[in-house]
């Protein structure tokens, strides 16, 4: 049986965890924008995580995730040497990387993780990369130096003003759009509300805005349709048609409602497993 040991663990910010996982077959094929599906325990669910980095030589995949529910909390308790029960990928379509000229990469919170390999690939493809990253507060800001290396210009915002611009990444998007001419494409990855707001900010100018949807999934290979997203009035499956879509065409209200589908069940799972702990240890 193939096993997926955790080789390295970091806590880059409170409630965020970084794992470097040995998965040579996935690392050999991974591209920016793709994701993996993993399972922690036999009775556990399958959850998608966007790939934050990959190293073909070392045969590793890096994921960074936030503890938002039962499974991610369970996952964060794993230590170096522990093995993931399942680790499947690379899934989804890669980001469309080419030399566009001048591009913008916007990452919010844990969304900076998946934006990083995209920014890096865009830079390697010869683009002039302007990156904007933001978090609620300074200590939650991740990958600043990596993003600085992958970008020609880096702007930072925190909601509370503890670091960089006092405000949201959308303020900086507006600023960059004023300062820079002939922007070709913008990527925005982060919380749904952030991606929606960035898309609304760029909509009047028509600047092409790619967002990475992170809906509820089960199989991640197009089989179940749990991850339905409405894009330009058409139903798409984020797992095989995405996860990246044109942010100006995404039905955000629908996406927000679908993301909340199992909110009550999440609470029930947490309550049920309390005391017993998760089955992963």
């Amino acid at each position, binding site marked *: *049986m*193939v096993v997926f040991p955790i080789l390295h663990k970091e806590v880059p910010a409170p409630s965020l965890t970084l794992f470097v996982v040995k998965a040579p*077959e*996935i690392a050999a*094929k991974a591209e920016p924008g793709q994701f993996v599906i993993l*399972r922690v325990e036999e*009775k*556990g*669910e*399958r959850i998608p995580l966007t790939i934050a980095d990959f190293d073909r030589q070392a045969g590793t995949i890096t994921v960074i995730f936030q503890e938002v529910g*039962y*499974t991610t909390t369970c996952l964060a308790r794993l230590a170096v040497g522990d093995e993931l*029960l*399942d*680790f*499947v*990928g*690379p*899934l989804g379509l890669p980001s469309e990387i080419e030399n566009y000229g001048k591009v913008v990469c916007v990452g919010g919170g844990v969304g900076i993780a998946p934006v990083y390999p995209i920014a890096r690939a865009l830079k390697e493809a010869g683009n002039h990369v302007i990156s904007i990253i933001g978090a609620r507060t300074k200590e939650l800001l991740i990958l600043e130096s990596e993003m600085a290396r992958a970008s020609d210009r880096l702007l930072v915002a925190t909601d509370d003003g503890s670091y960089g611009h006092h405000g949201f990444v959308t303020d900086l998007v507006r600023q960059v759009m004023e300062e820079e001419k002939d922007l070709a494409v913008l990527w925005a990855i982060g919380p749904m509300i952030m991606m929606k707001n960035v898309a609304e900010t760029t909509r009047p100018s028509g600047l092409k805005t790619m967002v990475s949807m992170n809906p509820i999934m*089960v*199989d991640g*290979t*197009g*089989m*179940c*349709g*749990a991850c*339905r997203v*409405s894009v330009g009035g058409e*139903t798409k499956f984020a797992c*095989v048609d995405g996860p990246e879509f044109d942010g100006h065409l995404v039905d955000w*209200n*629908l996406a927000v*409602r*679908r993301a*909340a*589908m*199992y909110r009550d*069940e*999440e609470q*029930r*799972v947490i*309550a*049920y*497993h309390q005391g017993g702990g998760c089955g992963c240890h």
Partner: protein
Amino acid sequence: MPLNTAKWPMPAQEPAVRRRNFDEVALGYTEEMALQEASRCIQCKKPGCIKGCPVEVPIPEFIGLLSEKNYQGAIEKIKEKNNLPAICGRVCPQESQCEKYCLVGKKGDSVAIGRLERFAADYQLQQGIEPPPVAASTGFRVAVVGSGPAGLTAAADLARMGHQVTVFEALHVPGGVLMYGIPEFRLPKHIVQAEINSIRRMGVEIKADSVVGKMTTVDELLKNGYDAVFIGTGAGLPSFMHIPGENFNGVYSANEFLTRSNLMKAYLFPEYVTPIKVGRRVAVIGAGNVAMDAARTALRLGAEESYIVYRRSAEEMPARKEEVEHAEEEGVEFRLLTSPVEYYGDDKGWVTGMRLQRFELGEPDASGRRRPVPVEGSEYDLEIDTVVVAIGQTPNPLVPRTTSGLEVGRHGTIVASEETGETTRPGVFAGGDIVTGAATVILAMGAGKKAARAIDAYLKEKKQ
């Protein structure tokens, strides 16, 4: 000796009880029942039953062995042709295959071949008898993509011929539709696991979590040491009707609904972490076996009312008669000649109702069935809080799209010979739903069997 014209009835859980549990509905024959039923077989000189079996099980012979209480002999006889008998005995549509051609059936009920097959297979699973022997190694390596009925059958047959077989499965457990699609109450998962384990013990390696088309491709498998590839990736993509409101929360594809319940065991939530939402009133759209499975699953998950909504009439329902009867007994309500045109929802995005339209049957269409024609002004509303869309599946494009030299049909199916599974690419064979579009477990197994034979011939020719 006067022939008993009636089949020995299958013992089953009472409908009122079973509609609220996930235990197997059909309990299986006892030894006594099996012997009684086996004695009804008249051992035809020219048996029609075998011709009705896509995998050519020597039916009279195994029934003869059963009658002699040689149960091990019976199962060995079945396993000469069928590597998944405990599964086939449960889910094959025998009434339209072997039993349809049974001579005894001309003057009463046919012999209950499927139930006898199940008896013999379950006997072996209980006894834990060794798997069939495999031929000496040929040195050839074959990759099988997908571990559903087609892939498992091809893998087992190829292993028996002495080839080294690796099966690639995208999900975390092998079995395909047997694990994610067919519910526990119709096909217990421990049975599927046991049959798969016996295939493993024949030397077949199964790699789970391996998405061919993403992690690797058929082209790469051929480049990296596999001498032939069998594609059995099934019809995994759910169809939707594309009517307003289909993306409301609470509207599931049958695939998602059944995968959550069967594969992820959401019926044991919250012990198992994957959730499923079932409201008071559930409407399942469609009337195939998958639709029946979904409607019956909904009852077991606590629905007060479970509807089958189907735009044609009872006669055109694609589901097996037995499945329809079981659903009816359990209280599933049928709204026939009716189809949804729109779903309604509340301000939180949850489905709350559907607008239905009545249909009547017109002239026969391309499928030979009478075409349903909408009745003007017949719309009415039905309050529901869960919808399961079970109107069919299409082939998953991941493998066809990433394999060079493969001809693909209009509906995304792989073009392959019905007799051999040969595709337009030498060394690449395909069978099951990926070739035919959504069909049955046993037809996929038949295709896997034929392909295994053709692959064996291809490899032998390659050697020369």
